[in-house]
């Protein structure tokens, strides 16, 4: 793979990381006061956690951010910390490190979101392609309207409905959580099974409402692709319809979808965060929710940064995979 292309993509990735870090640094400062400090003072005033602890936290943060230094120095220190994934310590669960807490939660979210998104993408794209294909079986056209309607419902609201019917009323699935209460996360087969069982409903809500979205954009692409000369010529070549569908129409229509997937990841993750809250799933979404309720700023900023970095990384990987799918992409041109 040519170096220039690689470098350009890496630059974009670094840009995303930089934006993520800067958002966390500058937005709080736009409010005039440092919310971390305020929150700490507030806690000290209430004295709930014991004054001694609070002072320790304050000290650690002052040392870390050098709050007496000029802004640009603070910014540089801050960037350096972010790059080393040093987000400080949790305010409410001192002295737990934010990075450690995120690291515990991240695998849950990553697995759930990745699997569910890829399934939604695959099912949705295939379905959308079939909707636009004149020879598609009848059931496709029957299923289309309800699936498209589902796509208009936010993930987590769909999750709420699923919980009510499938978990609360009919008790087919657990009500929430990532694993059975009382067990400890481990790599045992029984635990993995249990975790998978717990993840079905959250995954289903992401898939069900994602399928319609992918189906819709794929349908548009397929309509365009079917008008292309190479599809007409493929028909004139006397190919079987299935081959024309898979190798000529679908194969070409899916290329722009891959780019769209990279762009949609941000939305998928936003939705998944909320799904975790509905299901009490032990991922970063839930961690974030708890942090918001207690205004534990280091966690909020840490989660934001980590998720953006993860998405940037996923986009980078997708971009590097694209040339494998499309031989026309030459890296010399922009």
């Amino acid at each position, binding site marked *: 793979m040519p170096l220039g292309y690689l470098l350009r993509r890496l630059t974009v990735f670094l*840009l995303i990381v930089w934006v993520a870090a800067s958002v966390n640094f500058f937005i709080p400062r736009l409010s005039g006061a440092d919310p971390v400090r305020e929150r700490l003072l507030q806690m000290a005033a209430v004295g709930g956690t014991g004054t001694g602890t609070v002072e320790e936290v304050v000290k650690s943060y002052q040392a870390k951010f050098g709050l007496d230094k000029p802004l640009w120095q603070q910014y540089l220190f801050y960037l350096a910390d972010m790059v080393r994934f040093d987000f400080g310590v949790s305010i409410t669960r001192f002295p737990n490190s934010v990075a450690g807490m995120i690291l515990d939660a991240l695998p849950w979210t990553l697995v759930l979101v990745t699997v569910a998104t890829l399934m939604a993408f695959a099912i949705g794209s295939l379905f959308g392609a079939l909707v636009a294909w004149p020879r598609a079986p009848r059931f496709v056209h029957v299923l289309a309207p309800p699936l498209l309607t589902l796509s208009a419902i936010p993930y987590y609201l769909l999750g709420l409905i699923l*919980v009510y019917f499938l978990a609360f009323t009919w008790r087919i699935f657990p009500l929430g959580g990532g694993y059975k209460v009382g067990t400890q996360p481990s790599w045992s087969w029984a635990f993995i099974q249990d975790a998978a069982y717990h993840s079905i409903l959250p995954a289903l809500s992401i898939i069900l409402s994602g399928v319609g979205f992918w189906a819709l954009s794929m349908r548009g692409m397929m309509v365009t692709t079917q008008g292309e000369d190479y599809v007409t010529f493929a028909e004139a070549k006397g190919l079987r319809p299935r081959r024309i569908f898979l190798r000529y129409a679908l194969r070409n229509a899916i290329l722009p979808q891959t780019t769209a997937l990279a762009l949609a990841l*941000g939305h998928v993750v936003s939705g998944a965060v909320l799904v975790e809250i509905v299901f009490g799933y032990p991922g970063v979404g839930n961690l974030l929710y708890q942090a918001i309720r207690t205004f534990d700023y280091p966690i909020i900023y840490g989660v934001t940064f980590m998720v953006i970095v993860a998405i940037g990384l996923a986009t980078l990987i997708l971009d590097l995979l694209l040339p494998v799918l499309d031989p026309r992409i030459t890296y010399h041109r922009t």
Partner: protein
Amino acid sequence: MTAVPLSLEQAQDRIGRVLRGLRTYPMLSAGLMLILLVLLISLIGPLFVPREGVQVGSAPPDQRPSREYLLGTDTVGRQILAIIIYGTPLTLQIGLIAGAIGLGVGMIFGFVAGYYGGALDHLFRGAADVFLTVPGLLILVVIATTFKGAVSVMTQALVVSALAWMYPTRTIRSQVLSMRERGYVQLAKLSGMSGPEIIVKELMPNLLPYLAASFVSAVSAAILASIGLEALGLGPQNEPTLGMTIYWSLYYTSVLRNLWWWWSPPIVMIVIIFVGLFLISAGLDQVANPRLRRAA
């Protein structure tokens, strides 16, 4: 005297044309119908249901739907029917304000980037692409937690609008880019038109359906974002918006307590709004891009 019947005829003609248009675009008309229904509820509802119902303690808590409390009450003694009637327009309001700001900014960025190209294009497109990649909700969380305190409907709209401009920027830019080399733009230059004039007089009229569709998408995305924020508890705490209603019902674990009348009405309302907006935007897409019509 002749003016009156003439204009009447014209009006009839216009209505007829609109009706025919609605028949040609069933998605668009179905969507308009749904949104009209939502608007009707928010307009006519207040005539029958007093506003006191949204206040805490205005009714006994946790009441099932009954003749007295048509949609029941919540744990802190608010009436669900009143919440829906007074909360829905608030949610719509947030979406409309944020969507309008987003489209406005997006139009400026998109037209400038697409038409003039060059460094401005790199800047605007790059910014839009980067911000599209990051999960907007998290950035909004950072913003909302920073400016915590008494959030009003207006502040909520402004917060959401911070990330409502990227998608319009991107789509409008690519549309303008494909139109920029069209013959009629070249001809307009030869006819002595200036850049801004060409944007307004030659490009915009042709993009009207696209702009309308972008606006609807922007409103829809803004509502989605605001409900998301509110479901995290980061919304106007004292207003009965649909998202805050969801938040409170989650907060008081209404699902596990089988208070189905509490969480289901806002969901139904939200679904109607989203499906309606989605159909309108898909319908407008058909108007703008006739090729999609056949495959519908």
